[in-house]
């Protein structure tokens, strides 16, 4: 094979139809799902911090878990929500949940009731689902004064004062901590308003794409823990001793990431070889 055909091969590699790349990724994500590999998961400090804080709470303590995820991000955040609900219910903690993302209301309700049923927990006594109201920023501010202002009733239409769990529960100061599961920029509102104004102890569970932005708030102490994406959910599942979807997905994630790194390397080699040849040819 002479030089010009070698280079045209590299140029062909650079210009390959994107659908072949889609197929490659599809295969390397789909096939590992059919087999169990069981790669070990290591725990990070920021997820450990959330686990430790929840684990240290005595039974009967109130925890707020506002959930702002929807079908678009449920693959990442649903396993985390399940793990958190399981951890809280297994320790007999009481949960107040909201769903301030409109397309996620039914999803969050389904998740909460599913896990509550596993532990025999009752709505109104062991957990309360407040539901949805628009404009999360304003709702977060108002909940800081009194939950009843934005939520006079819960999702099922019960007045809050009629629920046994809500007796004496006024606002964030009644909650030991808040763990916000968020797929939107609404996480900023929880930091600015719930923690900034009302000094509520706050941790975030966010999608991986957002996670890097919140390390700075972890470093400044504005949040006490950060759970990023499916990896964070896998770590939390490991800590509560329940291996679920997230743990299994980490095997697939490992393979997919390796494939993408290989693709990047191939693309760069092709680029530099082609560029070297073009310079050599005086093009």
């Amino acid at each position, binding site marked *: 094979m002479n030089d010009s055909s070698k280079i045209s091969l590299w140029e062909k590699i650079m210009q390959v139809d994107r659908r072949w790349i889609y197929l490659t990724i599809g295969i390397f994500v789909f096939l590992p*799902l059919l087999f169990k590999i069981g790669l070990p998961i290591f725990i990070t400090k920021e997820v450990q911090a959330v686990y430790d804080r929840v684990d240290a709470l005595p039974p009967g303590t109130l925890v707020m878990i506002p959930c702002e995820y929807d079908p678009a991000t449920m693959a990442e955040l649903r396993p985390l929500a399940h793990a958190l609900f399981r951890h809280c219910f297994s320790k007999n903690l009481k949960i107040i949940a909201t769903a301030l993302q409109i*397309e996620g*209301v039914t999803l969050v309700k389904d998740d909460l009731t599913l896990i509550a049923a596993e532990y025999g927990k009752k709505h109104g006594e062991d957990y309360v689902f407040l539901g949805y109201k628009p404009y999360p920023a304003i709702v977060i501010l108002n909940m800081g004064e009194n939950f009843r202002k934005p939520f006079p009733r819960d999702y099922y239409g019960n007045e809050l004062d009629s629920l046994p769990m809500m007796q004496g529960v006024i606002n964030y100061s009644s909650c030991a901590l808040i763990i916000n599961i968020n797929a939107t920029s609404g996480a900023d509102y929880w930091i600015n308003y719930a*923690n900034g104004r009302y000094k509520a102890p706050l941790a975030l569970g966010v999608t*991986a794409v957002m996670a890097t932005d919140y390390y700075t708030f972890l470093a400044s102490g504005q949040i006490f823990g950060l759970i990023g*994406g499916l990896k964070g959910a896998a770590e939390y599942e490991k800590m509560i001793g329940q291996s679920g979807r997230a743990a299994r997905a980490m095997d*697939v994630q490992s393979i997919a990431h390796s494939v993408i790194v290989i693709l990047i390397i191939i693309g760069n080699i092709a680029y530099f070889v082609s560029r070297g040849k073009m310079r050599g040819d005086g093009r």
Partner: protein
Amino acid sequence: MTESANLITILWYTLAAFLTLAIFSFLYKDNPFYRLAEHLIVGISAGYWIAVLYHTSLKDLWLEPMARNFSSLFTPGGTVLQEIGLVITNVVPGILGLMMFMRFSSKLAWLSRWPIAFYLAITAGVALPLYLQSFTVRQMQASMINLSGSVRDIIGDIIIITGTISGLAYFYFSMEHKGMIGGVAKVGIWILMIGFGATFGYTVMSRISLLIGRFDFLIEWLRLLTSYATS
């Protein structure tokens, strides 16, 4: 989701799988199945929004309190001033909300500026002190480093303080990036690129996670089909 493999469940799962595959077909090329699924979901989504807004918000926060407060005007007990005050607190936001619809009238569109003005005032008013406090002051406070701890911690703290200052220098466009400012801004862009690279790495993780979720669903559907077929 654990559901017994009865026929109705299978049919619903198959509908979901069909819609999933219709969306995936876009990867090959745009086609009528993809368009159908896309337009169907725009409609279902909007219909879902209407139902949720009515049941969770409009009824709770406006219709029921208004009905309750108006009826208390005509029932004995309570002070008149208090009851009128409660009615006003229901009527005013309703009027402001309805004024938003004036934007569709060419003559009265200017009225829609009042609720917009109110909304902007509230959000700008709460944002100003709190964003300054949380995003600026607290972050600057956290940058005042304490050079103690392990070697890793000390190096990390030095990188944080120099990186923050040089990053801010990079975004300062009121002076030309020459000389010392230029040098500091250059360090800033290096630090920013490392940060953005970390974000890209996590973004890849995030997107792959979403794909894993969908493939998981398709595998579950196939398992349901085979278990129903073999039962």
